[in-house]
């Protein structure tokens, strides 16, 4: 039996030179061609790192994305970007606004996925933000109801998923972090996801974080994807107890075993203990191991160290279990 595949939730840190280039570009001090050249350079940097480390399923690292909602909104017809709004403390962001009928004018991520896939023999995961989250994290100044907005977004995102599959993506992740914030909307999120993955045969997954899982479990198992990816490390693996208490976790589980909000790099034994907790609830052939969330808020060194400890811990557990991919 094979099992315990290693992967990532999505983003990786932008090295300081790229962060500076993005600022310079925004201020009109750097031409776009130079920014894109740097984005490609650092995508390759992360692809090389993931290859060398031996992750099973890799990501394109999202060097070209600022934020997970705005990036898609910027390239979509029918969406505009607002002035600055406060997120917390002294942090501000620009929030997308629906201003007309949504339409995809060109692929959002396909070029980057292809670029990344050409740099590795490992499967590169297609990564997009889900329709419920896109709508929830935007203003709606066009659609009569939030439901219409979400479903229109789902139709647009379906085109991207279909393109990724046609290009050869074996894994496609449609992130819905907002799903856990308003449990009563879960049925809408499920319907929207069905639109996104309609007719898709690649392995599909979704990442959900924060929030009130007590209120959405086990109903969240109805989200029509193969893999659900959840943060575990920063909540002391309490979700596993919820699964034991409430209902068996019937899908494949991608389990976060390192905390992406902490500078401290977990040690190998700690990570192994977390993996064994997961194995208590889901068998190895349905279990993926990854960080809690995207690592973009960590430094390059921290992110690399956190990924390295995951790979080292998984390797040992695979051997201890006698898995065929040990």
């Amino acid at each position, binding site marked *: 039996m094979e099992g315990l595949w290693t992967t990532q939730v999505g983003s990786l840190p932008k090295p300081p030179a790229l962060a500076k280039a993005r600022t310079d570009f925004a201020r009109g001090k750097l031409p776009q061609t130079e920014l894109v050249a740097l984005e490609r350079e650092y995508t390759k940097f992360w692809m090389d790192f993931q290859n060398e480390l031996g992750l099973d399923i890799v990501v394109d690292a999202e060097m070209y994305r600022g934020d997970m909602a705005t990036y898609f909104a910027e390239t979509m017809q029918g969406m505009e970007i607002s*002035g600055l709004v406060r997120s*917390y*403390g002294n942090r*501000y962001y620009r929030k997308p606004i629906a201003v007309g009928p949504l339409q995809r004018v060109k692929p959002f991520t396909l070029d980057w996925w292809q670029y990344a896939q050409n740099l590795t023999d490992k499967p590169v995961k297609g990564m997009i933000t889900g329709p419920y989250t896109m709508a929830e994290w935007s203003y*709606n100044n066009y659609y009569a109801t939030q439901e219409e907005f979400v479903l229109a977004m789902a139709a647009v995102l379906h085109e991207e998923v279909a393109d990724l599959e046609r290009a050869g993506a074996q894994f496609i992740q449609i992130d819905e972090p*907002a799903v856990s*914030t308003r449990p009563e909307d879960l049925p809408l999120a499920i319907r929207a996801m069905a639109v996104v993955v309609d007719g898709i045969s690649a392995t599909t997954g979704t990442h959900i974080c924060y929030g009130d899982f007590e209120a959405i479990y086990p109903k969240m198992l109805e989200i029509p994807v193969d893999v659900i990816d959840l943060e575990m490390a920063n909540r002391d693996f309490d979700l596993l107890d919820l699964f034991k208490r409430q209902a068996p976790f019937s899908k494949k589980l991608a389990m976060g075993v390192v905390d992406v909000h902490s500078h401290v790099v977990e040690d190998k034994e700690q990570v192994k203990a977390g993996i064994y907790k997961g194995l208590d609830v889901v068998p190895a052939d349905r279990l993926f191991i990854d960080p809690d969330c995207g690592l973009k808020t960590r430094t390059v060194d921290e992110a690399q160290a956190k990924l390295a400890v995951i790979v080292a811990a998984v390797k040992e557990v695979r051997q201890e279990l006698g898995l065929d991919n040990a």
Partner: protein
Amino acid sequence: MISTVPGNYPKIANRPGGQALRRAISSFDRGRIAAEELAAVADSVTVEVIGEQERAGIDVITDGQVRWQDPITYVAGNLQGYEIGGLIRYFDTNTFYRQPEATSTIAWQGPFLVRDYEFARDHAAKPLKPVVTGPYSVAKLSLLGIYADLETLVMDTAKALNQEMKALAATNPVLIQVDEPAIVWHRYKDDWDIFREAMDVLMDGVDAKTVLRTDFGDATGLPDFFALPFQGFGLDMVHGKQNQTLISDFPDDRDLILGIIDARNVRMETEEAVVDSVTLVTQHVAAGRLAVSPNTGLEFLPRETAYDKLQNMVHAVKKAQEAVA
């Protein structure tokens, strides 16, 4: 019938030079400017947002809560006993606050809103109300820490904030607004008995006109809500649609802040829709007891949109006044 605002106003503007406070906080965090310099910028932004509310035509304004990091931290952080911790989502919004934790007994250590209020009032041409986040919301959205149960933490917080209320009352404000969003949040309504007791503790001996404002939910299922010891109540009619069912029994001798402008979306309400909803409410509540308002603080919007929404609301209130006159 008047117009008012819930509390916070966007701290930065998108025009050139509109980000003074953001820059000052960033410089302060890096140790490049002193606390006094940051405070001076906060004061000047306060004057600016007071001016904007006045220009929009709002009748009863606030200081914009320019110094507040969020609705919870500024109040908790100024009481003794709360330590400010990690980021956590604020209700179902896509904004976050730093969650306080009670690490020692909660106590009042002197007034912290009085200076803000007096400064703002002295720079305002219109009546200006101080706003206090209530003890239940502060305690409920914090971690219990050394406290064994929520009730004790809420009551200690209420005792501490009672002192702040008295200190504010001594400055003779036009009214004091107490914000308690947590009690109408659908999952917290079981705490109603604790809440009621906390409001008695909070209001004990407070000699001022007071209003209890709620948002993010409705006050249904909270028996005798309007019998709480306040002269007025604020309801969120956008995210608490069920509040409509409470209007027909609204007491004649209380004021109502009607939160009907959606401060979480940029879409402009049509004048017609606002006039219609206000007119409906005046069948049950005297126009003279009614204040029209956005449903939540304006910081969920870009500054320019917030201003446009306020202007729009003021025009609609004028129309509604004519309609019911």
